[in-house]
């Protein structure tokens, strides 16, 4: 990628070409969306008011950006100082993730210019969505403040403000964990209001707990994935401090993920028992539930466990993307597949080309922003001028 760039001086690497095509297509669909309405580019309907822009961009986006709060909590609250090098990349991933969620929401809601209404104009405080919106709004600000020192170090000349922000690290980290707990769980709680629409194997009063617990191992797994990929493509930007803690971090996060996944599985089973859902396991949806839970939680959990026990980083690096896919499957199940399960198939939802293009567009913008930032700003390395006071 960047190495190719500097070698040939050419902007037209395969990755850039594909990214360019997606950006172009995205722009076209954006124009259509904002000149002809949601109906012209989506398969949304009165029966299916929420599609992949909610199921993927919002639900998956927020779950997978959870690496920010988990890594900074591990480093600053639980005292794992050797993971210090991983905090900035995780915070950057989270910041871009949440920024993109907000960006994607501008496509989905009918009147995006009114997105600030619930916070500043008229507060629907009985709504779980209000709580999600408020938390995401505040948390995006927190993440921005946590990312800002890297930007300031790059730009130079902001030492006083950078110093203030660095002093706030502990407070911002704790506040970040509070906010993350709230909105990660609330995304699950959104569906509590529609018991008649969500299949009994997925509908449980424990939905908020499920979403919160899974967000933890989603974030940890994303950090492992992002680290593995970054090592491949941005190795030249990494310094000794980052590299020293890198392998240790992947093992520690594997251990933590396996443990939390075990707790999550326990809650899944207990949830079935609480509401006496066992007989649903023998239906078609039951098979699908088992596919999701056994295939994408039990198995990657075991993979993580063996990988940690045997100090086999290869297994860890298989378990991580496996887990990430499992999270996405769970969010799709709750929002799109097990939701409206009783509707006749003619009335069920499938994303349109326009919706898929926009979702790809949003992810591509994020990846490009990530690349831009890490190849210039002190994310994987410590800025030489700030070696002593680096946070």
């Amino acid at each position, binding site marked *: 990628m960047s190495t190719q760039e500097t070698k040939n001086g050419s902007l037209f690497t395969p990755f850039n070409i594909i990214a360019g095509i997606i950006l172009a297509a995205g722009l076209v669909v954006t124009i259509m969306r904002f000149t002809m309405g949601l109906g012209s580019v989506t398969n949304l309907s009165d029966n299916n008011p929420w599609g992949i822009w909610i199921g993927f961009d919002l639900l998956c986006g927020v779950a997978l950006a959870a690496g920010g709060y988990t890594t900074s909590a591990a480093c600053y609250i639980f005292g794992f100082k050797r993971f210090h090098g991983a905090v900035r990349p995780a915070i950057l991933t989270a910041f871009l993730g949440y920024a993109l969620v907000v960006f994607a929401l501008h496509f989905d809601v*009918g009147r995006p210019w009114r997105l600030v209404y619930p916070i500043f*104009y*008229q507060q629907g405080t009985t709504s779980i969505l209000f709580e999600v919106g408020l938390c995401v709004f505040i948390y995006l600000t927190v993440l921005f403040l946590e990312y800002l020192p890297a930007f300031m170090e790059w730009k130079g000349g902001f030492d006083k403000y950078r110093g203030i922000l660095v002093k706030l690290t502990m407070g911002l980290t704790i506040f970040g964990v509070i906010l993350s707990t*709230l909105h990660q769980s609330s995304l699950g709680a959104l569906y509590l209001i529609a018991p008649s629409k969500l299949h009994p194997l997925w509908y449980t009063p424990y939905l908020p707990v499920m979403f919160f617990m899974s967000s933890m191992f989603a974030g940890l797994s994303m950090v492992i994935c992002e680290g593995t990929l970054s090592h491949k493509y941005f190795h030249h930007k990494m310094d000794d401090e980052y590299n020293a803690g890198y392998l240790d971090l992947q093992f520690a996060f594997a251990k933590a993920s396996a443990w939390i996944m075990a707790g999550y599985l326990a809650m899944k089973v207990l949830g079935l028992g609480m509401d006496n859902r066992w007989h649903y396991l023998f239906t078609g949806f039951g098979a699908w539930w088992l596919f999701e839970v056994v295939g994408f939680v039990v198995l990657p959990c075991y993979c993580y466990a063996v990988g940690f026990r045997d100090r086999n980083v290869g297994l860890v690096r298989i378990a991580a993307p496996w887990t990430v896919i499992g999270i996405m499957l769970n969010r799709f199940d709750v929002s799109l597949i097990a939701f409206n399960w009783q509707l006749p198939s003619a009335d069920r939802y499938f994303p349109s080309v326009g919706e898929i293009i926009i979702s790809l567009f949003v992810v591509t913008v994020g990846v490009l922003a990530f690349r831009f930032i890490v190849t210039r700003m002190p994310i994987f390395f410590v800025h030489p001028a700030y070696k002593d006071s680096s946070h």
Partner: protein
Amino acid sequence: MKRRHFLGLLGAAGVTLSTGVSAKAASSADVKGLPNSFGVLFDASRCIGCRKCEAACNVVNELPQPAKPFDDLTVLDTVRRTDAKSYTIVNKYTPEAGKPPVFRKIQCNHCMEPACASACFVSAFKKSETGAVVYDASVCVGCRYCMVACPFGIPTYEYNKVLTPRVMKCTMCQPRILEGKLPGCVEACPKEALVFGKRRELLNIAWDRIGANAGRYVEHVYGEREMGGTNWLTIAPKPSFAAIGMDENLGTTSAPELTSGALAAVPAVAGIWPVLLTGLYAISKRKEKIAEAEKQEAVEQAIAKTSAEAAEKLAAELAKAEAASKRHTEAEVKKALEAAAKAPEGGEDA
């Protein structure tokens, strides 16, 4: 004042406050309900599927003309739902083959505890005193969570508008009922399948009718308690409500009740997490400090041990050196004495 005395006074004051004054904090006992709110009773056994109610609704609410006119009854051959141009529609069902069809009019049920109002994050829905659940398009962001929340699948959205898309649903003709008029659909019905009145009176009418026509109706008034109760009530001929497309598994728990648990957890996290997390941080800091201190001690001990050993070794070497030097000196002295003992024989006058 002695501390014990002070605390005793505090305690007494607390007890007095909690028992003497009525609790200002609201509980669900403070919910009055709207006993005089209006509603509509729909009798599915009287409906003939003429669609005059749909036509009247369209006129009263100034909705756009549909593709097929309202007197086209072939429309009833497909099961429809409300849409952005139709606040209400009539569906035809055939619960028992060979018997005449039963018709059902579908529109917003104006729930007593509306899920749409509970779900809306800008409070765009309000249950008014008349019983109508009204929508305020001037604050709506278009998130469509109300559509997810409504258990009856009623709200629709103007997906084809760019600047002013709205959620569309029956208003119970709020402007008309405030003027003392009947809702458009009720006024237009030629068969008195729709009756407008106070909800509690409608319940009486419904149960009277069920009792007076033994065996004809299902012995249940739909909407009496479903989802916490609705202002739009339905009675239906046998065999069932399910046979005319109504969900019999909704339960009686209202939307606010379904979400109150999750909402209650929010302040608990805000109150407890700061304490918990700073506590964890303090514990890990303390562990680190103890580990540091133990390490320091181990280093100091090691230093002390090695310097003690070194000192011992030094002393041993010194002693050895001293002994060696002593022996050397003694040897020299001996040699000198021997030499001196030999010398006197030939050197007296040297």
